[in-house]
């Protein structure tokens, strides 16, 4: 038995001293290999008497198991140390900067246009479109602007030089000509599939788009965005107009306590006509919505003028309805606090990053509009 004890002590010591996987393997072969020291002892069991074997068997097998376990532990310890050493050598300085990734953005005017579209879509409005280059008929005449009337002058219209046919085209001064295109009964289909044409009542459309007037200061730019709304049906009255716009404003500003009022106004293409004001506070130099006792005009609206309906081939004694026009950029400035309209079209990447919206801020009834 002394032999076994000595052998175990020797093996334990050499295993503990093994420096690498090769040394472990050498010890394993020397002890447990075919002609290893423990393997040799195991072979002696066959020649023993049953009594001797009863005593020596467990001792030798025990020795073998313990040595095998020591070898496995030592091997694992060496591997772990080796991995630690490798990982230590693989260190990356994670305080170094990651490569810059461009952060894109959606323009606030377009975000606001989508917000508005979302609100009106929930109310059953479809989106209609028309061309930016219009003619006098659609922009003025069909909208009941009298020839040479001061109201035309007030529109600061951009004109093109007259063509060979003497017809002078213009840039639309508002999105209202699309009302005419949407309603007008003609024998011809629209000039392009995307252009609105001859919708049968009931009509419920919004028209977002670019509009143009020759004017420039902090609140006017030669190009800006409007959203027209048009509802034509039997029995649509001014109370429906009021509800629609009040509902829209409450949803759009996403703050509690937005108050509004309707004031009489004049537009050639609506009768009665109104402007809508919302309650605001101007005391701090900037306009705050949802508080204060001041008013801010935000849109023009009214019942579609019977002359406009007639001009489009709709009988005003059967159908009636309302129209409104919202300044998209302006409502965006009010909601999100941009101070100067001109900045909207300057394409300064710093401004776009600051006032722009994440690609993932798409208006959604569950998360809000932005």
């Amino acid at each position, binding site marked *: 038995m002394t032999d076994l004890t000595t052998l175990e002590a020797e093996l334990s010591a050499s295993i503990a001293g093994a420096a690498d996987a090769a040394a472990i393997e050498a010890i394993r072969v020397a002890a447990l290999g075919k002609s290893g020291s423990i393997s040799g002892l195991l072979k002696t069991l066959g020649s023993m008497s049953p009594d001797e074997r009863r005593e020596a068997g467990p001792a030798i097998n025990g020795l073998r198991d313990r040595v095998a376990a020591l070898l496995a532990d030592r091997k694992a310890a060496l591997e772990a140390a080796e991995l630690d050493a490798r990982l230590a050598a693989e260190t990356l300085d994670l305080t170094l900067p990651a490569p810059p990734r461009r952060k894109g953005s959606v323009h606030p005017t377009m975000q606001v246009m989508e917000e508005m579209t979302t609100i009106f879509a929930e109310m059953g409005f479809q989106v209609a479109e028309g061309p*930016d280059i219009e003619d006098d008929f659609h922009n003025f005449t069909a909208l009941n602007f009298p020839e040479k009337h001061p109201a035309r002058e007030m529109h600061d219209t951009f004109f*093109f030089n007259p063509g060979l046919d003497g017809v002078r085209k213009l840039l639309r001064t508002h999105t209202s000509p699309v009302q005419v295109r949407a309603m007008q009964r003609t024998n011809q289909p629209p000039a392009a599939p995307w252009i609105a044409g001859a919708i049968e009542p009931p009509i419920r459309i919004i028209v977002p788009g670019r509009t143009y007037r020759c004017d420039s200061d902090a609140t006017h730019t030669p190009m800006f965005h409007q959203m027209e709304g048009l509802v034509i049906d039997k*029995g649509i009255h001014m109370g429906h107009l009021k*509800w629609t716009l009040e509902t829209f404003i409450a949803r759009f500003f996403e703050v509690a306590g937005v108050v509004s009022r*309707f*004031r009489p106004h004049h537009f050639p293409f609506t009768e*009665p006509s109104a402007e809508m004001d919302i309650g605001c506070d101007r005391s701090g130099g900037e306009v705050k919505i949802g508080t204060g006792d001041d008013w801010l005009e935000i849109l023009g609206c009214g*019942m579609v003028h019977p002359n406009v309906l007639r001009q489009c081939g709709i009988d005003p004694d059967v159908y009636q309805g309302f129209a409104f026009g919202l300044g998209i950029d302006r409502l965006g400035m009010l909601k999100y606090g941009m101070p100067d309209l001109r900045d909207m079209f300057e394409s300064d*990447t*710093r401004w776009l990053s600051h006032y722009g919206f994440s690609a993932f801020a798409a208006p959604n009834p569950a998360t809000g509009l932005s």
Partner: protein
Amino acid sequence: MKFTLSWLKDHLDTDATTARVVEAMTMAGLEVEHVIDPATKLAPFTVARIVEAVQHPNADRLRVCQVDTVDGRKEIVCGAPNARAGLTTIYAPIGSYVPGLGVTLVEKPVRGVVSNGMLCSAAEMETAEESDGILELSDDLPVGAPAATALGLESVIDFEVTPNRPDWLGVAGIARDLSAAGLGKLRDLSATPVPGRFASPIMVSVDGEACRQFSGRFIRGVKNGPSPAWLQARLKAIGLRPINTLVDITNLITHDRARPLHVYDAAKLVGTRIIARLGRHGLNGDEHLIALDGKTYELTPDMSVISDADGERPVGIGGVMGGESTGCSDDTTDVFLESAWFDPIRTAQTGRVAGITSDAQYRFARGVDTHFLVGGLELATTLILELCGGEPSEVVVAGESLTAPAPVAFDPAYVKQLAGLEIPPEKSAEILEKLGFRIETSGNPWQVTPPTWRRDVEGKADLVEEIARIAGYDALPATPLPETPRPAGGVLTVRQDRARTARRALAAAGYNEAITWSFTRNAIARMFGGGADALVLANPMSADIDTMRPSVLPNLIEAAGRNARRGFPDVALFEVGPVFGGDQPQDQRLAIAAVLAPHAPRGWDKRPQDDLFTLKADLLALLEELGAPVASLQTAQGAASSWWHPGRSARLQLGPKAVLAEFGELHPAVLKALDVDGPVYGFEIWVEAIPEPKRKGKTRPAADLPALMPLGRDFAFLVDAARPAGDLAKAVAGADKALIASARVFDVYQGAGVPDGHKSIALEVAIQPREKTLTDAEIEALSARIVAAAEKAGGRLRG
């Protein structure tokens, strides 16, 4: 347009405050711009009385005054020569702001004597342009009374008038609406006729379209000169400069009744007849007139001209401005008073062509009451006789007034139908009558006749507006829209949805959305294939933006340049917006364009800059999002437009006539013209060119998920160096459409081992077995087909 509360009260019996009047005006449709309240500006200034004034010990021109003020007795140093004991004047305390001096008073010694405030002149309070010494006020005024009250200064209401309501350009018209709105009782607005004492020695006539109706009267023996204080105060309060009594009277009636008048000095008229006619174009060009403003105007045949001397001499531009030669002065003793009606359109055009905006022109251009010519004459005559004396002639009239408005058939139930308002018919009738409408209510519909000053009212909708706005829009009942059937899949068209998707996809890819003008300058438009005359604006804001853009790219490139000049050259911008191929509606197309000017900061890891292939990846990913058939797209290398680098650009197309997009590096010459440093990469997609997806249900085809592992085989081919790699890859992929899932270029090599003028292209071909694993022989056969296909495309297998 401006007025004061006291002026309004001449016509409206009311005890309403200014605030109440403003509120009522606003809710009746009169947009109040602002209220100028002198009491606010003059709040610190109060009445004070000088008790003692003695010579300043150290200054000849200064006096040291003991003054009774609202703050008690004060010692105040004053330099005004009229500062004397007993004088009632105005005191400003220490700390108050003196607008005429632009200073805030501080307590400091004046030549050794501390002045505890200031005694003020009218100029120092800005109640007069200049003044001589401190104010001298009535001794009845109590010490401490506010300066505004002491000076009789009133709030001035400044408001905008919509073009449909010329009657609001007179205070009486406002009083009428406010009366209807319940603010008070309207006083009698009618004019009392003044009988003529003799036949007018001046006759009048109208010639054709120049003037519809012309009336006048001669008044002899008047005494002109400065008008009385009340009249001057009234005109000054609304910003008019008093001239002389006769002219001030016409100005008063212009602003009181929206009824412009003119006075001629009869002694300066030639002949016995005034003729309203059109301007004349003579041998020496158009006629001329030196008007009352001292400027010379050309009188074109489109203008209405008032003439004397048998029509030979112009003495006024009809409805716009009188001539200098016949104007009234303090010496005038005989006058001819004119009250005429000029056509709104002609007057508007005359004002525009001649560049004159006068109070008369503004009113005639919008439309003056057609039936108050003589009424206006009578009002003016009464005032002239009262203030200047004299003797009036009989009234002379030429021409006919426009016919009065015809009655409108009106069912009072239409108020409810159009406005949703429940208003009893008798209330509707009352409102209309108060506004001057005549109503025949015996039958249904009613017959409602608009007054002659309301030419804007043409139909029953106009009448609803009158009733609704006076009843108050606050009463409109907010009513939910009726439910309508909704489209099942959202409200956007495919084109609209693509614009939305592009915006979100490009923003997610790191591009900032910009919105740039729809215009550019003509030279740039021409460089980008546009610039046709039909797309050039006749009245651009500036030459830089005078032509509709044929492409979004130049505006984005210029934006990149502006950002670089601001010190931020690393730019990735996009825009979704219109481009214009012509002036017809169908010539407008929707473009999605982006530019990439990579200038990322240097990195410690030496990572390369984004390049044209970054942009290509973004473009293809976007097209995929938009539902374009990306797998079928041809990349036509070198076929893109002239604004691209010829060797670094391509068209993406389904065929030569179905071009979806162009992309590449911008041509250096174009960048130079736009003053931008390159390289700049870009693309432009034409949304309408992307085929609409074929209508399918929501369900998708079964997924193709083969159970067998794909295997990869690499090939290298030698091709002519000029040949696009894409052609080879496409040929290889087409060698067996069933088995080859993809053929991807993973190496391009030129150099040692490759013959001159050639390049080696290495492809990884992904083979997807379908029913069973492929045998070696089958793979060999497939390889042979691949090599054969490559050979057809000009590729030779590298040995």
